[in-house]
C-alpha cells in the first residue's frame, strides 16, 4: 500500500497528472484527506499537492462577482472585505471547526468532499455559486446546485480539477439567514442547517428566495419545491405552515451518530419558520449569545 505525492508547479502540470495517472486525489488544506488517510479509509493513490499553485489563491474582490480559487480558505474569506457583500460566507466560515481548521480548509475542498453536512456548500449554493472545472479538454462551469447526484456523488470527472468558484454579486433587496444547529457552537458537525436568502417586494410578496439545507438529505439540498410554494406570495402564517409541510416532503433525514430523523425533521421545520418570520430584516447570526 503506498501513497505518492506530486507537487505540480503549474496548472498545466496538474491537469496533465489528472489526465494521465490513475487515482489522483487533489490535496489542498488536507482537513478531510488527512483524517481519511489516518483512519486507513483511502486506497493507494497519488495526491496532487496544489499548494504551489499561487493562481489558485487569487486576491478576493467583488468587482463583477466574487471568485474563490481552489486554495481559498475559510479564513481568507472571514478576514476579507467581501464579507460585506457576502455575509453568509463569513458566517459559514466561522462555523467550520475552529480557527485552526479555517486556516487550512478550503471552500473547493468542502465542495469536492461532498459531505451532506458541509458547512460551506449551503452558503455558496444560496448565493447561486457556479463551479469552474478544468481539465486538459478545457473548462466548463456547473451550477453548484446541479453538482451532486447522490451521497458523495458529484459531476466532477476524474480528470477534472475544481479551479474556481464564481458567485454573482447579490442584488439590492435580498436579505440572508444562516443558522447551523450542532451539538456545540464550534468544532461541531451540523444536525441540520439552513442557508436562506429572500427578496421581498414593496407590496410584501416574495419576489424570489433560496433555501439550502445541510444534513437532511444525501447531499446539500436546495429545496426548490418548498421555494416554489413561497415564491410570488405574501408570507402569511398559513403560507409559512404550507412551507413547513412542504419541507417535510422534500427532506430525507436519517438517524445517525449525530442526531435522529425525528429531531432533524422537527428542527428543520423550526428553521423554516424562523427564516420566514424573521427575514425581511437583516441577516441573522447563527447562534445567539
Amino acid at each position, binding site marked *: 500500500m503506498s501513497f505518492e505525492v506530486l507537487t505540480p508547479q503549474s496548472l498545466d502540470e496538474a491537469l496533465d497528472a489528472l489526465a494521465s495517472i490513475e487515482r489522483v486525489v487533489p490535496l489542498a488544506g488536507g482537513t478531510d484527506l488527512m*483524517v481519511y*488517510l489516518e483512519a486507513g479509509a483511502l486506497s493507494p493513490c497519488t*495526491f496532487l499537492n496544489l499548494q504551489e499553485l499561487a493562481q489558485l489563491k487569487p486576491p478576493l474582490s467583488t468587482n463583477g462577482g466574487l471568485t474563490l480559487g481552489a486554495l481559498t480558505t475559510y479564513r481568507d474569506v472571514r478576514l476579507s472585505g467581501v464579507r460585506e457583500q457576502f455575509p453568509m460566507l463569513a458566517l459559514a466560515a466561522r462555523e467550520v471547526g475552529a480557527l485552526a481548521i479555517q486556516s487550512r480548509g478550503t471552500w473547493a475542498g468542502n465542495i469536492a468532499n461532498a459531505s451532506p453536512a458541509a458547512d460551506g456548500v449551503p452558503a455558496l449554493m444560496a448565493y447561486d455559486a457556479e463551479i469552474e472545472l478544468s481539465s486538459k479538454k478545457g473548462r466548463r462551469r456547473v451550477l453548484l446546485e446541479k453538482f451532486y447526484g447522490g451521497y458523495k456523488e458529484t459531476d466532477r470527472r476524474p480528470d477534472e480539477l475544481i479551479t474556481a468558484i464564481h458567485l454573482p454579486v447579490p442584488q439590492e433587496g435580498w436579505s440572508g439567514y444562516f443558522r447551523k444547529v450542532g451539538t456545540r457552537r*464550534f468544532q461541531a458537525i451540523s444536525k441540520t442547517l439552513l442557508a436562506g436568502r429572500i427578496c421581498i417586494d414593496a407590496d410584501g410578496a416574495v419576489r424570489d428566495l433560496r433555501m439550502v439545507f445541510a444534513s437532511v438529505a444525501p447531499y446539500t439540498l436546495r429545496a426548490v419545491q418548498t421555494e416554489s410554494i413561497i415564491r410570488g406570495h405574501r408570507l402569511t402564517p398559513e403560507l409559512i405552515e404550507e412551507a413547513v409541510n412542504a419541507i417535510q416532503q422534500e427532506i430525507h433525514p436519517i438517524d445517525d451518530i449525530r442526531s435522529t430523523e425525528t429531531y432533524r425533521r422537527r428542527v428543520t421545520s423550526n428553521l423554516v419558520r424562523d427564516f420566514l418570520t424573521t427575514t425581511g430584516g437583516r441577516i441573522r447570526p447563527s447562534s445567539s449569545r
Partner: protein
Amino acid sequence: MMVAFAVNGKNYEVTASPMKRLLDVLRDDLAMTGTKEGCGEGECGACTVIMDGLLVLSCMVPICQVQGKQITTIEGLATDGKLHPVQEAFHENGGAQCGICTPGMIVAAVYYRDHPDAAEDLLEALAGNQCRCTGYTRILRSIKAAFS
C-alpha cells in the same frame, strides 16, 4: 522525500514519507515532544502549532506541505530560559492538569494575543482546543491574567 523547514527559528532538513504528519515529524524525527497528539483527527487542538503566521493542527499537515515553512511550537515560546508570560500564568494559576491539552491551549492563546482579529473573542480563539480534565475555568483565568 527531503523537506527543509524551520522550527522555532532553527533550520532542519528531514527525510520522510511525503504524507507523514508534521506532528509525527516534530515528535519522532526532531524529538520535540511538547506538541501532543490527542484525537489525531482535527477535533481536539492538542497538536496546535503556528505555521507561517497561521494557526494549524499539526496532525492534519502532511510534511510535503511544510517545505520552506516557519513553524512555532510550544518549545519556541520561552526565551533565554524564561517562560513566555502565558506559560508563566498557567503555572501560577493552575492552568494545567494532565497537561495534554496545555501546549495547544497555550499556542492558541499566544496566537490570539498576536492576532486579535483572528477571532471575535478569547472563547472563540480557544474553541478548537478541548480540555478533558474540565479545567477551563483555570485555563481562562491563566490566559486573562497573562493578557492583563
